[in-house]
């Protein structure tokens, strides 16, 4: 039998590798599902891999004014996202890095990534980068409190913000059906949409710069830098979906406490894949159903999320008080 430490390390590596591998597939399958729902054939789910590879091989064109910050950002953002992904349980509960930070830390890491991307957007000194950065700031600053309130609600339920612990708690069925959890879930979904720049907040496929948020920030990127940024973006989507699954539907996750059962891990991976598939289809469906909204509508949208999260907390207090 393999000693625990080594196995944990291996597991972590596997986890990261899987995350990296799954992220483009997730996006690809989302697009695929979307086009199918629209009645088009659409690109195959593995199209994103091809894009990334092509971008990686291309030469990178830097603006004259691009500074070291502009060049460092893609690597930073990508690695930050990877680390974040590595901290979220996907198919196994306890990973070494899962203890390196709780929900808040992950949110903060994502914020750091946003920080650098906004800087990169401002770096060249073009108007569009600025637009993107400032809108991103708006969305981020509205999304974060909502996430925090969600975290709060979860902390109230599970008594901690450590992901594995919350997942365990939910698994143990200690919750049953909770009003507050439901509210929190909705809030979190909204935030996830906003954070990943999906419709209706932002349109990843748009080509009209004035409506861009995220795309406007990375407008100046090309070649491998762009590839890294794109990859980071895909990872971000993955992270959020896996967060949702870990926090609200952590079923079938393998627990590494009592040694490692290979089958359990496999099962976990399978379940996780299933989750991703469902998520992809749902996102596609939502994006078809709704139209993109004006930037200042986003405020109300995210404000709604925040209110829901607050309600979740308050309800929790009520249920406790009774």
């Amino acid at each position, binding site marked *: 039998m393999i000693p625990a430490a080594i196995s944990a390390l291996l597991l972590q590596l596997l986890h990261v590798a899987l995350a990296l591998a799954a992220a483009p597939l997730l996006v690809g399958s989302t697009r695929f599902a979307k086009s199918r729902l629209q009645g088009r054939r659409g690109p195959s789910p593995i199209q994103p891999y091809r894009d990334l590879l092509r971008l990686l091989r291309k030469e990178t*064109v830097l603006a004259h004014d691009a500074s070291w910050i502009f060049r460092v950002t893609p690597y930073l953002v990508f690695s930050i996202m990877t*680390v974040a992904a590595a901290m979220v349980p996907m198919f196994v509960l306890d990973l070494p890095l899962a203890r390196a*930070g709780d929900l808040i830390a992950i949110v903060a890491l994502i914020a750091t990534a946003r920080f650098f991307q906004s*800087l990169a957007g*401002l770096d060249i000194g073009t108007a569009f980068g600025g637009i993107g950065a400032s809108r991103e700031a*708006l969305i981020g600053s509205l999304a*974060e409190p909502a996430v925090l309130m969600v975290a709060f609600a979860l902390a109230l339920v599970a008594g*901690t913000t450590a992901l594995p612990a919350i997942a365990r708690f939910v698994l143990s069925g200690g919750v049953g059906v909770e009003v507050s959890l439901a509210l929190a879930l909705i809030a979190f979904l909204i935030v996830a949409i906003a954070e990943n720049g999906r419709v209706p907040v932002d349109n990843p496929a748009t080509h009209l710069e004035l409506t861009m948020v995220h795309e406007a920030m990375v407008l*100046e990127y090309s070649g491998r830098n762009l590839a890294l940024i794109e990859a980071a973006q895909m990872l971000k989507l993955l992270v959020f979906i896996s967060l949702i699954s870990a926090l609200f539907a952590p079923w079938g996750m393998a627990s590494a406490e009592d040694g490692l059962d290979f089958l359990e891990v496999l099962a976990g991976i399978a379940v996780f894949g299933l989750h991703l598939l469902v998520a992809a289809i749902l996102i596609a469906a939502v994006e078809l159903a709704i139209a993109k909204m004006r930037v200042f509508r986003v405020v109300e949208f995210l404000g709604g999320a925040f209110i829901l999260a607050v309600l979740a907390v308050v309800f929790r207090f009520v249920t406790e008080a009774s």
Partner: protein
Amino acid sequence: MLTLTLLGLLLLVALGLAAPFLRPHRLAPRLVHGLTGAMALALGVAAAIRLLAGGDVSELDLPFGLPWTGVHFRLDDLSCFFMAAINIASPMVMVFADGYARRQAEPARALAPLPVFLAACNLVLLANDAFVFLLAWELMSVATWLLVLANHRDAESRNAAFVYLAMASLSLLLLLLAFGAVAGGDGDFRFSAMREATERPALATVAVLLAMLGCGVKAGLVPLHIWLPLAHPAAPSHVSALLSGVMVKIALYGLARILFDLVGPPVWWWGVTLVVAGALSALLGILYALMQRDLKRLLAYSTIENVGLVVFALGLSLSFRANELFDLSALALAAALAHVLNHAFFKSLLFCGAGVIHEATHERDIEKLGGLVRRMPYTSLFMLMGALAAAGLPPLNGFVSEWLILQAVFASSSLQDNLPRLIVPLTGAALALTAALAAAGFVRAFGIAFLGRPRSEAAAKAVEPTGSMLTGLALLAGSCLVLGVFPVIGLKLAESAAHGVVGVDLPAGAIGWLFVSPLGSGGAAYAGFFVFLAILGMALGVRAFLGRIWPERRRRAAAWDCGFPDPNPATQYTASGYSQPLRRVFATSVFQARETVDMPPPGDARPAHLEVRLVDPAWNWGAEPVRRAIEAVTLRLNALQFLSIRRYLSLMFAALVTLLLIVAAGQQ
């Protein structure tokens, strides 16, 4: 230890008194800054060691001051912690000052008060009776006042200094009342007596409120903060650094000392008041910072934000204490103290950086900067770290303490009183909003000031500073990183101080070299070192890996900008443009932000013009009316100066008759 410390402070004062006479000498600034820094370092390190070694409380009474009580000094864990917190950052600022101060117009004016200021701040920490405490407290204000007056020739800083001094003495008088109320009529001003007092005087409640106000003024709590955004920009940058890094901390110490130590067991509303006030300050502070164009003023408002965070945590700790949840109280207190420490470092860094920029460009308006990252790479790197820390992002130190504070918030569900139980989470949400806005704000500050293309001649010609200025920045930035990657360093100090106050330890292994898990293992944890390592390793690894397979081909070209690149730097996004959405969402109601757009009709050559007007409510509804009232009253009263003798006689007569009537009434 205590005696030595006092001697050290005496030395500092002597240095300050000697400074004017050294002034003619070329090396005087270096000497003064060097000695001050060395002394501060010694004090700070000694305090830290004593704190970690867990030395016991030492007291000292001397036959000075109030004749019948004398003066009392005391060195306990709390004062030790603050001594470490304020004294370890300041030597680095001194290093910076060595290069920076000599470029000022009149360096000598800041030279003499500087050591005295530091001495006074430390003396506040040592005070063990109301007299010494307030004496040191006000001495600190006087020194600060002189420091702010360092460039007294421009009216703005004179005004700032005046407002500062007025507010400072307001805080002094409030504290006088507070201590008077605690000490009671017979006037036993010894802290020990206040501690041991079993039955509280009737006015004790008022005293608490007065103390909150008094310290709040000095700490810059909204709405008592009006002096802060005036004084910080007006002062030379190393002074601003000290103001934010040291003086404000002393005010927080005063708050902690009085509320946790002197006025007996807390009542539930104390904590709630502080929590609300703190959250309010944090939110409004950062919102206002987000709207500023003056870099140092922006930083000043961010100081208000951080003070708000600390006060919030203190209030949380008090609420826990009121519910006898001592371990949680210790956690919150530790979080607050940790943030005090971290803020001292990153805010000093930022202010010093602002000083560097001002030296290089003579600009404080970020709209006129830009492109500095290419002119001054090192400065921009350090400032970037400072910005990350101030934005509370991992892996820097700002994040750790804010994270701890949030952990304390999450634990608030175990409070018994219902009001705090509902208020704390809501204010916690405000805190989250604050954190997000802080990130946005510092993206804006750094991005507009350092990135893009230079927006003015001065910015285009800026040059990297050399020598001690850069060294100072490097030291500060380095410590920000270290404290972020190995939070244990700061947290151990904070923990033992909290233990000294609350009397409980954090759960075993809560603070390890690698993991910080304040609620015990299994609870939420954060491992700054791992995160940092992972990110760095990943980034480098990816870079190396990609470079290995597909060697990078890079080409410089004009910016793409959707095919319409415009060389004119004026087309860049501006700071006000950046914050416009946030302004529309948040600031319209709070600051009555008004935008007036002047768009010339087609064919008209004159440029379009956008003007944004903001008001600080505290100023408009607090200070301004007072000023007007005084103006009006004095105008009326001044007539007294110009009456005729007969009228003056009539006044006398009226006084006489009134008194006679009073007596007559009294006798009937």
